[in-house]
């Protein structure tokens, strides 16, 4: 029998200690943070016992920032400095916002992403989201009693590269290490599937405050495989509120409203919608800022009629996903409802009619995404020993390149399983052409102008050749977070150009650094202290990872000399960690990474062999 190991009191049993990891649902309307405690995924509450944190940020006159209920309470009184539903603006330009007339902010059309003019200055949606994330990080650190190792942050499955990058930037700004960006429906499937021990094909119908996703997953022995996903990143519960709002304006024959009254009636509209979930009619009474009184009655039937086109709009992506997955309705074992907006009875009814079965609603639709994200965070942080959970997700929108005539050549089709890489060869158009401009786009349409521009970059130094003689190979790599990097290489000369896609719709590295500095009061010494701290944390993590790897496989996969070489680099790094030269630490980290390349390759090969251990490998020679 194996003996239990018990550490001496006060001594940590590193590297097997429990790492503090959380799942964060950064929602349009509400956000949550959850963690796994004693094997159970639980939502962390604030001091007053609230699970939800309204995704509302208010910039006060005295420079303070309020987040959550306090900010929400003031939204009608201070609408221009109280930002709600900021998720809708993430990675979006001004002309992407269809309904700006009804949003009471002073927008600024900045290249890449829209910005908002507040009394605290011009704020990017990334900065506003970072405030929400920061509040959740503090809540978690308080509840868990320590610094977080990292977080899994959920995003709508239908978010494109720009929106994902913006979310990751916001986390960084909030001082959170992102373990993974996880698609919301996949997170919900994890929470749901693990709870119920389900097997088979499931639909996740996720209607949140501002986004709609539908994902089809196959669950099999702890593997969650996304077969197809589709959605609308600008359709959600907010749109139902807005229909009620517009109905009030029409019925009460109101003139264009000021910002305060707009916010007041939008808030009222939301209350009306929620009330109609359990009641047949509602009395709407509001006093406007000029003393006018609005007094109306709305019935549930009227509400259904007002919003039936929105419900229908969710069924198109559902049909597309079904077709992409090559499935028929008989293949579907169950339909899981996620997102607060799926509480509306007419949504449940429409989904039940389409799929011919009652949807599953036994988990709280507001919490299920955060609960699933926490489970994944726990696995990624290395706390779970029975390693049987694996998520295989897909890229929601096709990636392509601009070719002659403004047309898109698709390189990676939507619904490809991540990570994915694909190469495409291009050639020159003119004799002696020495440079080529590469334009990366995302979307399903044939014209570049109808897709989202992700990045443009130039490959220079192509040796002059006849038109059509050069061979330029462009490789797209999309990682497990759904983020893209592109490499272009001229095959005959080896000229290479590499970028991680960011420029057109993301924030540049300089902008992020600038924001980080300003948020840390910008003193030079603070900056250096932070850089040093980051380098030390990175180095410590690397040392832990390699120690664990050596302990596991060092004896079997390395010769004594090879092992000694690695340990020498580890020793060098260990010495530097306690000193205060962040550059030296970074150099030693690079050296150690380099020294372990062969070891890493052998470990991976050994893992693969183990995957099929005991099976007869019929590797045929052809």
């Amino acid at each position, binding site marked *: 029998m194996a003996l239990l190991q018990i550490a001496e009191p006060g001594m940590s049993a590193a590297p097997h200690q429990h790492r503090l990891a959380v799942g964060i649902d950064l929602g349009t309307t509400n956000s949550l943070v959850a963690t796994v405690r004693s094997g159970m995924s639980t939502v962390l509450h604030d001091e007053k016992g609230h699970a939800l944190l309204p995704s509302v940020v208010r910039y006060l006159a005295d420079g303070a920032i309020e987040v959550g209920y306090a900010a929400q309470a003031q939204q009608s009184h201070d609408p221009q400095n109280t930002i709600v539903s900021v998720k809708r603006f993430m990675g979006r330009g001004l002309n992407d916002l269809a309904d700006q007339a009804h949003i009471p902010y002073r927008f600024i059309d900045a290249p890449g992403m829209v910005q908002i003019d507040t009394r605290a200055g011009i704020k990017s949606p990334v900065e506003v989201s970072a405030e929400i994330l920061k509040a959740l990080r503090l809540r978690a650190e308080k509840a868990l009693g320590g610094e977080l190792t990292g977080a899994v942050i959920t995003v709508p499955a239908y978010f494109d590269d720009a929106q994902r990058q913006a979310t990751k930037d916001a986390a960084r700004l909030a001082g959170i290490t992102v*373990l*993974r960006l996880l698609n919301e429906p996949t997170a919900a499937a994890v929470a749901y599937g693990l709870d119920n021990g389900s097997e088979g094909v499931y639909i996740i119908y996720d209607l949140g405050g501002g986004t709609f996703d539908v994902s089809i997953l196959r669950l*099999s*022995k702890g*593997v969650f*495989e996304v077969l197809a996903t589709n959605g609308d990143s600008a359709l959600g519960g907010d749109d139902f509120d807005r229909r009620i709002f517009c109905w009030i304006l029409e019925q009460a024959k109101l003139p264009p409203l000021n910002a305060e009254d707009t916010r007041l009636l939008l808030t009222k509209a939301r209350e009306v919608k929620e009330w109609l979930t359990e009641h047949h009619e509602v009395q709407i009474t509001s006093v406007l800022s000029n003393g006018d009184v609005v007094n109306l009655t709305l019935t549930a039937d009227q509400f259904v009629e007002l919003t039936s086109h929105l419900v229908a709009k969710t069924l*198109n992506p559902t*049909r*597309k996903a079904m*077709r992409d997955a090559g499935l028929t309705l008989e293949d579907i074992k169950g339909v899981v409802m996620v997102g607060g907006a799926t509480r509306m009875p007419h949504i449940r009814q429409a989904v039940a009619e389409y799929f011919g079965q009652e949807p599953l609603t036994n988990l709280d639709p507001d919490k299920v995404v955060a609960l699933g994200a926490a489970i*994944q965070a726990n*696995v*990624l*942080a*290395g706390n779970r020993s029975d*390693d*049987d959970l*694996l*998520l*295989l997700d897909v890229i929601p929108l096709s990636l392509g390149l601009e070719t002659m005539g403004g047309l898109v050549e698709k390189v990676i089709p939507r619904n*490809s*399983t*991540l*990570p*994915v*890489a694909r190469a495409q060869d291009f050639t020159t158009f003119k004799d002696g052409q020495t440079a080529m401009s590469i334009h990366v786009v995302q979307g399903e349409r044939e014209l570049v102008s109808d897709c989202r521009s992700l990045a443009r970059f130039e490959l220079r130094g192509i040796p002059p050749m006849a038109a059509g003689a050069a061979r330029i190979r462009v490789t797209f*790599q999309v*990682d*497990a977070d759904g983020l893209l990097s592109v490499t272009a290489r001229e095959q005959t000369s080896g000229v290479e150009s590499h970028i991680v896609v960011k420029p057109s719709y993301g924030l540049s590295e300089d902008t992020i650094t600038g924001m980080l500095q300003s948020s840390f009061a910008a003193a030079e010494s603070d900056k250096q202290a932070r850089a040093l701290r980051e380098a030390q944390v990175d180095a410590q*993590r*690397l040392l*832990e*990872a*390699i120690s664990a*790897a050596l302990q596991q496989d060092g004896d079997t996969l390395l010769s004594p000399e090879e092992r000694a070489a690695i340990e020498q680099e580890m020793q060098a790094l260990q010495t530097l960690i306690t000193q205060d030269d962040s550059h030296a630490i970074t150099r030693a980290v690079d050296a*150690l*990474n*380099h020294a*372990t*390349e062969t070891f*890493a*390759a052998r*470990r*991976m*090969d050994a*893992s*693969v062999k*183990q*995957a*099929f251990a005991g*099976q*007869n*490998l*019929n*590797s*045929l020679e*052809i």
Partner: protein
Amino acid sequence: MQDSSTNHFALFGLPAAFAIDTALLDQRYRQLQSEVHPDKFAAASSTEKLRSMQWATSANEAYRTLKNPTARARYLLELQGVHTDEESNTAMPTDFLMQQMEWREAIEEARDAKDLDALDSLLKEIQTAAKTLQQDLEHQLGEESAELTAAAGSVRKLSFVDKLREDILQSMEKLEA
């Protein structure tokens, strides 16, 4: 790169054949990803992370190729030195070309008439045609016969049929939007 990735079949420990056990392929794919996926290396060194991403990418590529019958046949022929040359070799038997034209016209008609049901039944018809071609391939790529030239012809026909299928799906999508 690695021994077992010299070909997609060997990566999953499957015999290189057109008729494969797809349930076993699914199972082996999941087993392999359970070992190499980046989620298993979240706390590892950046060198191991990079390795893991490369392996998981190869596993996805191999799975995608073997899962799809057309891609699987094309790949199997390539392993035996036969290129299907779908872009340059467009010579087709007359009866197949006639059938193609009929289908194209039918798709256009249904699209113009915004007739989703007609598109749906065309989709079914084309899927049946694809099934037949796949059965041909099973014979042509079988161990006894090995009619590689004929198999290359079937792959070219299947590509045509796949493209028609795509067109129908896109038309349906546009009509529903």
